[in-house]
């Protein structure tokens, strides 16, 4: 579904992604794990077109995304739930969801809203509330629902567990599983390696702009290297 081959991404003179290649197949949950600054978020931003690669390429459903404008990539069925949630703080909950459905025909928005409110009754209660006043967990719910409103084929989540209490982290991962069961392919970026590996079909471990390890979620969770680096403590 998503094929990334030999991408090199730069921030000015800084070489952030060094020749990374990987695949996401339809129906999978794929996790990218690694320490801060390894380049995980940079990869997601490059897929959604906010950053560009100097070499290689990104193909989604057989079409190249290399020069496609970010808003067109959303049209093609890629939703990116960015790091730090990035909800529209000054808009209401429902307006945030409507923005999520920007690519959808007006006639289908009401049904999508109903669907999201069914999944997250909490958001329905707060639909008129200004999004900036929601708690951290609710904001993450809103960010994920907003991504869902575009009816994505591939959903990319960047650190959805960041800054959340353990019980909410569990809830967020349950939601990811629910979305996956409903047929959405998931590309998950996480520092919480334990959780990310536990739900992943396959995972890639990144370090300073390169992929250093790959395997199924289970294999990596049991690998000595990963255990030493990310899972101990």
């Amino acid at each position, binding site marked *: 579904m998503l094929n990334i081959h030999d991408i090199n991404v730069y921030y000015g003179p800084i070489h952030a992604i060094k020749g990374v290649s990987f695949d996401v197949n339809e129906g999978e949950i794929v996790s990218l794990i690694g320490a801060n600054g390894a380049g995980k978020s940079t990869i997601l931003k490059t897929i*959604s077109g*906010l950053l560009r690669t100097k070499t290689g390429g990104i193909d989604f459903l057989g079409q190249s995304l290399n020069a496609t404008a970010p808003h067109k990539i*959303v049209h093609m069925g890629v939703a990116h739930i960015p790091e730090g949630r990035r909800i*529209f703080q000054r808009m209401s909950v429902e307006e945030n969801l409507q923005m999520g459905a920007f690519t959808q025909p007006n006639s289908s928005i009401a049904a999508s809203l109903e669907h999201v409110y069914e999944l997250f009754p909490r958001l329905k209660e707060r639909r008129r509330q200004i999004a900036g006043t929601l708690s951290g967990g609710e904001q993450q719910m809103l960010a994920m629902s907003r991504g869902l409103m*575009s009816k994505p084929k591939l959903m990319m989540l960047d650190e959805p567990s960041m800054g959340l209490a353990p019980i909410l982290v569990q809830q967020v991962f349950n939601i990811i599983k629910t979305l996956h069961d409903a047929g959405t392919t998931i590309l998950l970026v996480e520092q919480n390696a334990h959780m990310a590996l536990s739900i992943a079909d396959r995972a890639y471990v990144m370090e300073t702009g390169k992929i250093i390890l790959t395997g199924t979620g289970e294999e990596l969770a049991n690998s000595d290297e990963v255990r030493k680096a990310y899972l101990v403590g």
Partner: protein
Amino acid sequence: MSVFSTIFTQLMNGLQTGSVYALVALGYSMVYGIILLLNFAHGDIIMVGAYTAWLFMVNFGQSPWVAVIAAIAACTVLGVVIEKVAYTPLRKAPRLSLLITAIGISFLLENLAQLIFGAGARPVPTIIDVAPVTIGSVSISGTAIVTIIVSVVSMILLNLLIKKSKMGKAMRAVSEDTGAAQLMGISLNKTITFTFAVGSALAGIGSVLYCAAYPQASPTMGAMLGLKAFVAAVLGGIGSIPGAMIGGFAIGLAEAGASALGLSVWKDAVVFAILIVVLVVKPTGLLGRNLQEKV
């Protein structure tokens, strides 16, 4: 004239000029809200609107209605063209380059106008021909009434557009978080162009109303008007749409207040004194938000 009627007359004068300032200030604020650019060419768009009205009425012998529509259309198109030609190529450049470009465009427009139409002022025929309304001992000019009504209606429509329409919501989303807005599938180019078009159309309405009150077109007429509208936008909180409206009316009323106290030669100084006070006391303006730097 009694004290009451003096106050009332000055109040109407203040609201009349204030509504023009507000219309122009909206353009400054909307553009700043969306691409953080102080578009100093915005004032000169008004000058182009005024010349268009003059051209259509005097040279082409058209009715005021046609001239009004032509002026608004010319301003809208010009605003969009400036954005496409001058600002779009600088989307990723430092903000200072954009600001300098805006000042350059401003000089370009003023000098082009001088080249084409000459340095002298061209008298614009009557645009709004409405009889004055007399209440008791006070008479209010028809132009003032029409100006205030037209600008209030424009502002209500603008508010509806921004609150309810899809494009309006996209504008708010882009102004809040450009990156996240793109991830929603919002086209940055379209939204920015739309913002310039709406802002410039409001300036076009402002230019016609301004010419109704001060019936002449000159190459530098937009400079002072633009600066005052800019002060209005800063007073209201640049980037805030209700702020621009309140700021515009406040600046208009402050000028009228200065005139009422016999300080009419000082009224420009009063406006810029307000700017200094705002920048010292509350740089975010009345309704502005603290800009949080994103990491």
